[in-house]
């Protein structure tokens, strides 16, 4: 590989006017020196001599700025010249010299001259030569100051272009370019041939169509004849078969008819029987479900109410018994008390009697004493005796009165006690009455409710019954209606079948009209003949004849529709038609002659078609026969006889046998069909209404029955409630009577108290008077002599009075006791005893009643059970009957349906048979006609008769149409076609050849592309591998790789660098520090160098941003790289310098740069020697 041996500069930048030589050698040379001493000018000089054009790259404004500008001591240079000496011993430059010397000189005017080995040459020659040795002024191997990041900053595409250049794929591009030119030529040739082919093809296509038409025409002609004969024979065969079949079918139909008739009579019988059965069942059902069940239910409810009453009686009796027992207990209690009191009173009387005896004895004693005293006193004074007698009398009277008074007092107390007792009784009764009143009230409410319910039920029943009657009436009405509808439907169906049969017999209609109707053109009303209807069948022939060809006249809305329809007919080759546009067609005048009926009056039609119908029939009269026509005058009007003779106005008469086409309807089949449908719908709806009504009827009956049962329940309840009410009212009345009585008694007692009190007051007055009299008497008795005696007497008398008072008290007590015993207690006891006996009797009676009622309940329960059983049995019977009824009804319906169906079938069969007969006649006529026609054709042509004659007919039509379409036919086209075809095929084969040529070129281009890609990829892969390895070496722990933007097609994208310095996240390359960028860029440069080393590398201060460790790594790499390439490194770093083989020192004195060179290898040797010398010397 060539390398720089030395660099000579003269007048270049800071190097002054003298020639400065900088020696280089293989390996690693460092250029060092202080900033501004001119280190970088060495790099600039190299760029300059290699043909650099950019002054900026050499850090100058203009290229002439490179010329030494002079100093204070030295003049400026006239030109700048740099010479570079390359060692070419290995012939890296394609020149047969050991040394290649390149010189460039630039003058002040900016003009440059170049010399190669001393001979003038051009820049481009220099550049060519340099590029042969892989050297270029813009090469990646030249890294100028601050330019190390250019590999980072450059676009991915620029970066990829570097790889392109290194891999040398330019030669493929050249090959491709040549191939593309060939391809273009081939495509042009192809286009030319294509043009020719398309011309010939056009011609050929035209001829082919004509030839095909000609061939087709011949073929069609032949096939048509064959088809026609085949059709004829086929139709004859078909007719014969049809006649045969029809006859057979007729016989079949007859046998079927008789069969159906037999079946029908059987069904009729069955229906009658079933109906009888149904009636019987319904009658039974009516009686059982209605009356019997109701009666049963009534009985049941009666028994149930009896049971209820009995239960209630028992309850009542129990209550009464309880009540009586309570009362008996109370009475017994009282009786015991009364008896005790009697005993006690009797004891008291005994005691009081003894006391009385004693008192009487004492009184007698005292009287005796007093009498003695009185006797003594009497002896003293006679008057005194009289007074004394008076006094005694008074005293006696007084005593008597006092006793009476006490008696009265006792009486009052007794009366009061009685009153109190009565009042208690009254309040008890009142309380009872109150509770009774509440109960009565409640009962009344209940009764009211029940009554209301009863009346409601009765109302519902009434309503239900009236509704039921209404329903029955309605059902009857609807059934009548249904019968009417059914009858109508029957007749309509018959008519419809007749009409359908006739329509069937009419055979095919006008094809053109049918096609138009289907075409979808709006405003087509139909053939005139279809739009009218004959009023009476007897005019059918006459009207048909009168219509003549007008039958097929097509009635349309207006002339535009007609035009459209005509276009349609033309387009589809469907023949011709006459159109009657309603907006244009004019009516014909009626003939003004006497007699005949205007034909227009014998038809019915939609008034819209008036003019069209008039146009066809307006001038025609229908006459009875030729005689009538003659009467009117032949030639005076257009006339038609009923027999079908036509007498034209011109006098022409058309006549003979006329087979009516029967195309005119007597009735409109659609109308009849609609009518049948409407009637069927009506019938169905009527039937469903009837069904609904019947269901409603049944529901009402059931409802009414339930209401009857409910009513009897309610009335039973009501009866029981009313009985209760009566009982309660009785009790209430009793209580009221007792209260009244008691109140009367109280009144009486109060009166007696008042009377007694009055008597007592009287007694008091008398007592008072007597006391006063007694006092007066006693005073009168007061006699001094007798005082003592009197005193004694008074004392005795006082004692006596006391005793007598006591006696009278005792006596009154005795008397009252006696009265109490005899008048109260004893009668009370008797009363109580009587009451107790009565109560016991009552209890017994109630007990008996309970027993009886219970017995009754048992009997009634049994009866009820029996009734229930009977009811359920009856219900079951009814259900059975109902089921039977339903079954019978269903059976009837199905029988009737079957009957209807059979009838219908029978009718259909009849019509069918008729139709068949007509058909057979038609077939025979047609058969004769066809046989005549067959004589004109060659029967031998027929080989096979297809089954589908209709299709054959269509085919014939198609063939005829096609033949028409094909005419005129160019028969010469058959030959012409072959000539042109040959030419066409020749051109085709030529085109194929050209195409193959083109394909092979395209294939070649593809091959070049793929080779280019594989070469590029090999290069890139090797460099990328180097890059990753070198980056890892430069940035231990870091990772980096080169990545294609587009892996599929590398040339459509650029080359990306992905770097991850040690210990950092993946970084965008722009975000890296200067040092990191420099390391990445250097890894890239060395990666390339390792793959394909450049002859030399110039690095200007690539280590500016690196720390010593990194500089050391870079320096080591450079050292390693310098084994294969020359490295010139401008640096300030001692670590870098230390790795260099040679060091060029640059210093500046007085504005001029000077150079000193130092070989570190030699220096080492020298220092080593000196040290050894020193060592020896020491």
């Amino acid at each position, binding site marked *: 590989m060539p390398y720089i041996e030395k660099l000579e500069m003269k007048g270049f930048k800071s190097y002054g006017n003298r020639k400065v030589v900088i020696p280089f050698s293989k390996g690693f040379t460092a250029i060092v020196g202080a900033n501004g001493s001119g280190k970088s000018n060495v790099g600039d000089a190299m760029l300059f001599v290699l043909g650099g054009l950019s002054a900026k790259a050499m850090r100058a404004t203009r290229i002439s700025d490179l010329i030494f500008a002079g100093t204070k001591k030295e003049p400026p240079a006239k030109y700048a010249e740099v010479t570079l000496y390359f060692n070419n011993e290995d012939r890296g430059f394609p020149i047969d010299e050991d040394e290649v010397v390149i010189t460039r000189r630039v003058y002040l005017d900016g003009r440059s001259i170049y010399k190669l080995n001393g001979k003038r040459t051009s820049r481009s020659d220099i550049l060519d030569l340099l590029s042969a040795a892989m050297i270029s002024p813009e090469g990646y191997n030249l890294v100028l100051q601050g330019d190390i990041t250019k590999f980072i900053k450059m676009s991915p595409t620029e970066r990829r272009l570097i790889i392109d250049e290194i891999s040398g794929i330019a030669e493929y591009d050249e090959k491709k370019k040549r191939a593309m030119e060939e391809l273009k030529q081939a495509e042009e040739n192809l286009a030319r041939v294509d043009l020719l082919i398309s011309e010939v093809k056009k011609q050929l296509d035209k001829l082919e169509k004509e030839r095909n038409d000609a061939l087709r025409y011949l073929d069609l002609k032949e096939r048509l004849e064959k088809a026609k004969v085949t059709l004829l024979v086929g139709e004859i065969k078909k007719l014969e078969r049809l006649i045969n079949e029809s006859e057979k079918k007729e016989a079949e139909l007859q046998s079927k008819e008789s069969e159906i008739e037999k079946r029908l009579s059987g069904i009729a019988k069955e229906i009658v029987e079933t109906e009888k059965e149904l009636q019987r069942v319904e009658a039974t059902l009516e009686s059982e479900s209605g009356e019997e069940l109701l009666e049963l239910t009534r009985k049941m409810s009666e028994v149930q109410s009896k049971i209820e009453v009995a239960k209630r009686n028992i309850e009542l009796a129990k209550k009464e018994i309880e009540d009586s027992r309570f009362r008996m207990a109370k009475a017994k209690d009282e009786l015991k008390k009364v008896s005790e009191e009697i005993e006690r009173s009797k004891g008291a009387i005994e005691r009081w009697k003894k006391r009385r005896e004693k008192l009487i004895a004492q009184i007698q004693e005292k009287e005796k004493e007093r009498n003695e005293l009185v006797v003594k006193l009497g002896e003293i004074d006679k008057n005194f005796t009289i007074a004394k007698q008076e006094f005694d009398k008074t005293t006696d009277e007084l005593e008597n009165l006092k006793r009476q008074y006490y008696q009265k007092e006792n009486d009052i107390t007794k009366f009061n006690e009685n009153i109190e007792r009565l009042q208690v009784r009254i309040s008890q009764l009142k309380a009872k009455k109150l509770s009774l009143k509440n109960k009565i009230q409640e009962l009344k409410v209940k009764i009211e409710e029940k009554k209301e319910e009863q009346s409601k039920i009765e109302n519902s029943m009434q309503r239900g019954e009236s509704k039921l009657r209404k329903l029955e009436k309605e059902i009857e009405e609807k059934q009548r209606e249904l019968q009417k509808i059914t009858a109508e439907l029957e007749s309509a169906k018959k008519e419809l079948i007749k009409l359908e049969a006739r329509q069937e017999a009419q055979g095919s209609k006008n094809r053109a009209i049918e096609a138009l109707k289907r075409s979808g053109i709006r405003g087509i009303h139909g053939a005139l003949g279809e739009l009218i209807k004959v009023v009476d069948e007897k005019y059918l022939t006459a009207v048909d004849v009168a219509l003549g060809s007008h039958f097929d006249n097509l009635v349309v809305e207006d002339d535009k529709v007609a035009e459209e329809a005509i276009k349609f007919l033309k387009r589809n080759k469907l023949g011709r038609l006459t159109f009657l546009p309603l907006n244009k067609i004019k009516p014909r005048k009626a003939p003004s002659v006497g007699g005949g009926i205007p034909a227009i009056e014998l038809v019915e039609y939609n008034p819209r078609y008036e003019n069209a119908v008039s146009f066809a029939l307006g001038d025609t009269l229908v006459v009875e026969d030729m005689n009538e026509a003659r009467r009117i005058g032949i030639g005076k009007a257009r006339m038609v006889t009923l027999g079908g003779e036509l007498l034209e106005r011109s006098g022409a008469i058309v006549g003979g046998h006329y087979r009516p086409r029967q195309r005119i309807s007597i009735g409109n089949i659609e109308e009849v069909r609609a009518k049948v449908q409407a009637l069927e719908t009506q019938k169905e709806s009527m039937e469903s209404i009837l069904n609904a009504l019947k269901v409603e009827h049944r529901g009402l009956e059931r409802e009414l029955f339930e209401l009857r049962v409910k009513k009897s329940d309610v009335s039973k309840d009501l009866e029981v409630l009313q009985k209760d009410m009566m009982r309660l009212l009785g009790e209430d009345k009793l209580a009221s009577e007792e209260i009244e009585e008691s109140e009367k008694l109280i009144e009486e007692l109060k009166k007696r108290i008042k009377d007694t009190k009055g008597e007592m007051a009287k007694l008091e007055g008398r007592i008072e008077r007597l006391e006063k009299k007694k006092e007066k008497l006693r005073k009168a008795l007061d006699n001094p002599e007798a005082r003592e005696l009197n005193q004694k007497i008074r004392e005795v008398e006082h004692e006596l009075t006391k005793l007598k008072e006591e006696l009278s008290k005792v006596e009154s007590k005795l008397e009252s006791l006696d009265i109490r015993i005899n008048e109260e207690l004893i009668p009370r006891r008797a009363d109580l005893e009587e009451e107790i006996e009565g109560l016991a009797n009552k209890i017994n009676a109630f007990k008996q009643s309970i027993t009886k009622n219970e017995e009754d309940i048992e009997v009634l329960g049994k009866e009820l059970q029996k009734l229930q059983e009977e009811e359920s049995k009856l219900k079951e019977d009814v259900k059975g009957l109902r089921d039977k009824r339903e079954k019978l009804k269903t059976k009837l319906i199905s029988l009737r349906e079957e009957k209807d169906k059979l009838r219908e079938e029978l009718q259909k069969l009849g019509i069918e048979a008729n139709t068949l007969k007509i058909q057979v006649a038609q077939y025979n006529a047609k058969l004769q006609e066809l046989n005549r026609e067959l004589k004109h054709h060659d029967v031998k042509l027929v080989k096979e008769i297809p089954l589908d004659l209709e299709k054959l007919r269509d085919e014939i039509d198609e063939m005829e149409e096609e033949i028409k379409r094909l005419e005129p036919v160019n028969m010469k086209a058959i030959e012409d076609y072959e000539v042109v075809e040959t030419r066409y095929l020749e051109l085709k084969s030529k085109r194929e050849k050209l195409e193959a040529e083109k394909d092979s070129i395209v294939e070649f281009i593809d091959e070049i592309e793929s080779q280019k890609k594989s070469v590029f990829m090999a290069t890139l892969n090797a460099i990328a591998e180097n890059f990753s390895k070198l980056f890892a070496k430069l940035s231990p722990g870091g990772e980096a790789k080169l990545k294609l933007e587009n892996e599929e097609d590398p040339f459509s994208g650029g080359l990306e660098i992905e770097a991850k310095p040690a210990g950092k996240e993946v970084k965008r390359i722009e975000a890296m*520090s200067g040092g990191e960028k420099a390391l990445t860029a250097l890894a890239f440069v060395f990666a390339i160098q390792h793959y394909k080393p450049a002859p030399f590398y110039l690095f200007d201060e690539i280590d500016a941003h690196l720390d010593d460790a990194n500089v050391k790594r870079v320096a080591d790499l450079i050292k390693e790289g310098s084994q294969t390439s020359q490295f010139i490194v401008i640096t300030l770093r001692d*670590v870098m310098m230390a790795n260099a083989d040679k060091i060029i*020192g640059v210093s500046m004195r007085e504005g001029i740069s000077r150079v000193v*060179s130092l070989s*570190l290898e030699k*220096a*080492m040797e020298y220092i080593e020697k000196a040290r050894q010398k020193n060592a020896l010397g020491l």
Partner: protein
Amino acid sequence: EIFVVDDFRVDIEKHVNRLYEIVKEAYEETKDKISFWDLVFDPRPKIVARTFLYILFLANMGKVEIIQEEPFGEIYILPIEALKGN
């Protein structure tokens, strides 16, 4: 950005001046030009390179004259003062 600032950079002026002192002393002793090798006290390439660089700095500062007869030939140093003095 973190720079690893080594003592060489920081003390460059000090080192250059010291070298100048040494050069002057050597000149005072011999009154003759001084061989570059005499200034190299440590034979490690780094030190040699550094010394070479300081000499260049001194020359740039106008303090010494570097004399070399031929490429890679012997390098001699003379203080400028001595020249002026002569």
